[in-house]
């Protein structure tokens, strides 16, 4: 299995380099947009270095698919430009941009054999029979499709078909960037681990630009070096998985990253201090500006401890996930989730909790106050 991997690396070694720049991109599907909400993308600026592993992460409707279609050339942006290696490609079509794209649902020819499906993109580019044969066999070996090469694609399971799609995306050697659009949605969990770590290992060895679009935080965080988090057509934070987890710059990032997400609760600021549940919360920022409509305190479930004194909460429910306990608690400001070790003793009725100062943040109108 590992051997076949190195073969694939050799194939991909001929890929050309590509740095991708998105400049002031905005997009609307309407002819006459009236307000902010009519824009699917709002002033997107991204610099993606050549060879990076990137992810676009966000829920459905956040604009990530629009952005993906703009990068691949399926959609022309209303405003702004796209550069590949500093060359403006905004008006080029997908073929001229040389991009390999792998979609959420398998895009294959049911009536063709697995072999012919994999060979198809290469035949279109006029490669010789022997070249095609060796590449198809190498890719098939890597994706463990060899035993099914002569079968009709129609008879395969959903994840079998998706493996063919992946193979078709990876088999070409003349692309600028490989884009994955929710490629593992139809794959069973145990196979997800295998395919994901293979993609990641592949990337680390060859360092080609890959963009992975997903709503699944685990897939984005484990695959990418840099994750772009999108919310309502905007980029709310770009960072490494560690930055996004440890210091969310926007409440949406706090909520969306982490499972369960960050606890976000209303608080008050008095004399530059954070008042929450009648107590002053220690935190590591000094708050000067306070004229926000909404002030909130954010703390991840991982950074809350039971203690003798502190904020009083009621224990509502404890779920044992085998590895952790997730504790639902309630105080007068709202509900607070706490994550504890599976072996931890959990108080039964009510308890006191404290927040780890280092990871307690204050948000004004959803943006972090630093």
């Amino acid at each position, binding site marked *: 299995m590992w051997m076949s991997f190195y073969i694939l690396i050799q194939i991909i070694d001929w890929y050309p380099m590509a740095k991708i720049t998105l400049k002031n991109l905005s997009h609307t599907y309407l002819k006459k947009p009236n307000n902010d909400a009519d824009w699917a993308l709002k002033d997107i600026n991204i610099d993606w270095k050549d060879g990076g592993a990137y992810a676009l992460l966000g*829920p*459905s*409707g956040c604009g990530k698919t629009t952005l993906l279609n703009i990068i691949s050339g399926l959609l022309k942006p209303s405003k702004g430009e796209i550069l590949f290696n500093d060359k403006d490609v905004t008006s080029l079509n997908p073929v001229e941009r040389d991009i390999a794209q792998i979609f959420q649902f398998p895009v294959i020819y049911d009536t063709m054999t697995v072999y012919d499906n994999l060979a198809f993109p290469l035949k279109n580019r006029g490669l010789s029979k022997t070249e095609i044969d060796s590449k198809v066999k190498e890719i098939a070996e890597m994706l463990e499709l060899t035993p099914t090469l002569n079968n009709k694609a129609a008879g395969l*399971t*959903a*994840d079998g078909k998706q493996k063919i799609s992946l193979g078709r995306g990876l088999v070409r050697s003349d692309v600028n960037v490989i884009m994955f659009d929710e490629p593992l949605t139809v794959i*069973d*969990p*145990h196979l997800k*681990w295998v395919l*994901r*770590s293979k993609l*990641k*290992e592949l990337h*680390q*060895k060859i360092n080609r630009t890959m963009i992975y679009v997903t*709503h*699944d*935080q*685990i897939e984005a*965080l*484990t*695959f990418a070096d840099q994750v772009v988090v999108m919310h309502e057509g905007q980029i709310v934070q770009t960072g490494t*998985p*560690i930055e*996004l*987890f*440890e210091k969310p710059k926007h409440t949406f990032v706090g*909520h*969306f*990253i*982490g*499972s*369960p*997400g960050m606890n976000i609760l209303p608080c008050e600021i008095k004399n530059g201090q954070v008042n929450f549940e009648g107590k002053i919360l220690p935190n590591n920022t000094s708050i000067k500006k306070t004229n926000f409509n909404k002030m909130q305190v954010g703390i*991840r479930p*991982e950074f809350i401890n039971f203690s003798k004194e502190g904020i009083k909460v009621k224990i509502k429910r404890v*779920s*044992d*996930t*085998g*590895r952790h306990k*997730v504790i639902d608690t309630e105080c007068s400001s709202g509900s607070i989730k706490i994550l504890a070790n599976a072996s931890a003793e959990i108080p039964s009725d009510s308890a006191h909790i404290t927040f780890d100062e280092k990871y307690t943040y204050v948000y004004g109108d959803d943006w972090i106050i630093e």
Partner: protein
Amino acid sequence: MSLELKNVEKKVGIETHIYSTSLKLEKNTINVLLGSTLAGKTTLMQIMAGLDKPTSGEIWFDGENVTGKEVQKRNCSMVYQQFINYPNFTVFENIASPLKITGVKPDEIKERVGKVAELLKLSAMLNKKPDELSGGQQQRTALARALVKDSDLILLDEPLANLDFKLREELREELPKLFEDRDCIVVYATTEPLDALMIGGNTATLLEGKVIQYGKTLNVYKKPENLTSAKVFSDPPINIAEISKSGEMFKIKDNNAQWKSNIKIKDGNYKIGIRPHNITTYKEGNNSVEIDGKVLISEISGSESLIHFTSGKLNWVSLSNGIQQKNIGEHTKLFMNVDEFLYFDTNNRLVSNG
């Protein structure tokens, strides 16, 4: 009230889709069918619902043999992976539809739809059409329609599979609460071990048309009767190795790791199963064994780190809390938590759990 499958078997042509299965599901329980694609979850549910007949065996409901009784005559509702709603109906009409068919009075319909809409956070959307809703709201509507009927049996076939990660997390948390005060039997099919753990209740592990084990969810997870059940109920995949035991000493054959234990099994050859979170970059528990791992790849999610590594001839996965940055090819110390080992005999049956 209970639902009982007695030696139910399903064959299609020469292929067996469900091998002889006996299961008894009690009133007021949520029962998770856990297994990968083609394990037989959907077939089993269709047999329970009466949408499909077993080739042999019987289905008993509430003391009555209902084998062959049509689905229309059973008080049962089903929710599928695809969001199925009537596109021309409003959310209210969608939820009300099963009540209208059975001739419930308009006042009562209004009250019951209102209640269930409240529960599923749909109150503000009752006048909208399904295509104006997000995926999560569409699936909530389908769930509401299943709940409004007061069915004896509610079958949920991977209902969260097509939802975004965060919505899945949210609905998964709400589901057990929805059924808390209902006199019904709920069956929930999923491919995700974490779904089963979060939902709780009972779990049946399935593989290739066979029910491997059925019992309280946490019990099936902690004491899998055999290696197959342990594999089905592990995500990331469970690490497995062949070991030998001599006196108090245990030894992994492929990497020479050794430890002492006084568990009472005969000397000889066994297998161990170690879940990834029981191999960590730090010591956990009172008894740990150190091993040397060569890093294949590490994946960091911010709160935890997965390290895929080789140790001797083994190719394993570890899962640690926090950020454990490791480079490809780096040698690193890892600690296995001995108290959490699962021991299996050469026939793959569990002989001891730590």
